[in-house]
């Protein structure tokens, strides 16, 4: 699995993911919206933590410096 995210990209993903998870699980959002926030949040945290985004890979994108 080749990394395709820069450090800044990763930090933003993790921060945004945690914020979304908090909205979903912290009872700020309810219903479908909460579920959606949780799902997107978890994906953002995990892709940020490992430094690899499958969507980037699919479109041959990368935020790593060249």
């Amino acid at each position: 699995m080749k990394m395709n995210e820069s450090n800044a990209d990763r930090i933003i993903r993790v921060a945004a993911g945690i914020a979304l998870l908090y909205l979903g699980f912290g009872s700020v959002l309810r219903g479908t919206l909460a579920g959606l926030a949780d799902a997107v949040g978890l994906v953002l945290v995990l892709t940020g933590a490992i430094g690899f985004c499958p969507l980037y890979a699919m479109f041959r994108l990368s935020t790593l410096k060249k």
Partner: protein
Amino acid sequence: MDSQTFFKKLNESPRPVVVDLWAPWCGPCKTVKPILEKLAQEYRGRVDLWQINADDNLELLRELKIYGIPTLIVYRNGKETQRQVGAKPGSRLQRLFETLANGEDPSPAGMSIMDRFIRMGAGLALAALGWTTQSSWAWLLIGGLLIFSSIYDRCPIWRALTNRFKRINGPA
């Protein structure tokens, strides 16, 4: 290349240098070679790759105390900062080049300090979220796994287990 020329060139190099010691008869070297060449192309101008045929440079091999190939030696400012023996996966090699290109020193697993920091931060945040919102043990578990992934290469139990596994599954 004789050892004198090698060290002279090394001291003059303004960029980090990855030295790949290989041989034409070595299977794992052939696996790693195209990956390294691709990475060298990708990180051109930021990290240098020197590929040295071990068969033609026995004196240098003795000087560098090479006991197996492929061996990768990383040099920064003429000083060896890391040595990896055996074929490594492409992801790990890519992380090594990325870390060197960013001016950081790679850890034995090729993980930079920033990489560890991000994994650790994400893991701690997830675990804290799971703990404070009392939503699920799954968050604590995922957080714990992320924290472990940031330090696994330093964990003696993990190292002992993986070495044992390698010995069992290694060539007879």
